[in-house]
């Protein structure tokens, strides 16, 4: 093949229909309050981890809703489980449980359990 000195770039677009939303399904099953999130970001602004890590619970929940598994796997382990988000959430979303279940889902995907 010929070297052209430039490459075809991957599509940045989120392809909703080809994405797999099993993480969302799994989390929703154990923690229905994930549906209550209105993406206000209070959790992310209270977050201890976010001070130093590229981590946002608000983003994670949206990524779950869109089925962006790789992005979730990349950041979900940065949580410290300190629980400030849960105290802060104006809608009473059980945020820590959501993160925990996302991690569990990620493990289950690796083990081909879901």
């Amino acid at each position: 093949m010929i070297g052209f000195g430039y490459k075809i770039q991957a599509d940045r677009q989120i392809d909703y229909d080809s994405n797999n939303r099993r993480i969302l399904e799994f989390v929703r099953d154990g923690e229905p309050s994930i549906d209550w999130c209105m993406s206000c970001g209070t959790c992310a602004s209270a977050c201890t981890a976010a001070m130093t890590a590229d981590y946002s619970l608000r983003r994670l929940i949206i990524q779950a809703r869109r089925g962006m598994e790789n992005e979730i796997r990349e950041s979900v382990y940065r949580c410290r489980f300190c629980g400030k988000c849960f105290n802060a959430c104006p809608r009473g979303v059980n945020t820590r449980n959501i993160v925990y279940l996302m991690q569990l889902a990620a493990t289950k995907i690796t083990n081909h359990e879901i």
Partner: protein
Amino acid sequence: MKSVTIIGGGVAGLEAAARLTRMGQAVTVIEKSDQLGGRLNQWHALFPFRTPAGPLLSKLRNNVAEGMNMIVNANITGVEYNDDGFAIRINNNRMITANSVLLTTGFDIFDAEKKEEYGYGIYENVITSVELEQMFHSGKPILTAQGNIPSRIGFIHCVGSRDEKAGNLHCSKVCCVTAVKQAIEIKELIPSAEIFLYYMDLRMFGRHFEELYKEAQFKHGIQFIRARLSEAFENPDGTLQIRIEDTLLAKPLKMNLDMMVLMVGIQPQRKTGNLIDMLGLERDADGFLMQEDPYGSPFKTKIRGLYCAGGITGPKTIEETLIEARAVAAEINNYLKHKETYTGHEHFVMEL
């Protein structure tokens, strides 16, 4: 007994008519369409409690049934006035006189075809919120143009509102909550369907609106995506592919919909023959009728004895429109009682 002519037999017009009759005034209602009730004829259920529109409509109609003069299919070709009152010419031959006139001609609904990139009128499964409301009303099952039960339905907010390209900079106010209401209604009819709302801002301004929004999320799992549709495309099978930015992720997103509902906005009447221009009244920047003083005398126009209420002065809920109708009735009544000396600010004094 003095005479009032109400132009526009919609919610505001009918309620004001009923009140004025009860106050002993001779009322004439002029309606351009062939039926009374205005927009209420188009709605199935009213937010936030999803109250059926029918009973309210018939109540409004019944209240005005007896003791007043009704003219439908009326086309107003001219209005003359002096300090004593008004002469309204309809259908080119008939003349109606009145000591006072109330304008309740309402608003227009944005023509969705103007947002070409959304494909309304071109793509088969793009409908407007008004059409959806009528589908609910017909009681027929909600089906796609291909006759299937839609498994994914998207609601596009702000179609023709807050949009320079659409020529409307204002917010139509009622569409957000209407979208939430319709989303819930459709979810109840098709529980298996995925419902998405694409919003710029969610303006749950009214009492009980936030609760409805929460119900949509908590109870029905309806999804809200902060995005504004750039363009839609029709797939060979008639489904739609939409392209949005998931603004909270700052990433473009594409997805397929079986049906797309455009939340068409409310805009001022601009068609030729509209009374605002015919009477040479001033419009605000947004094109709606300018109120002389939104606080002091919101219903007064610059023409003595000419009043306005309802959608003609901007987007309003039916609740608000009814309240305005009752208030304007009281003010017109005061005006007719003390016509000679009336300046328009007495109603404050009189109510003290």
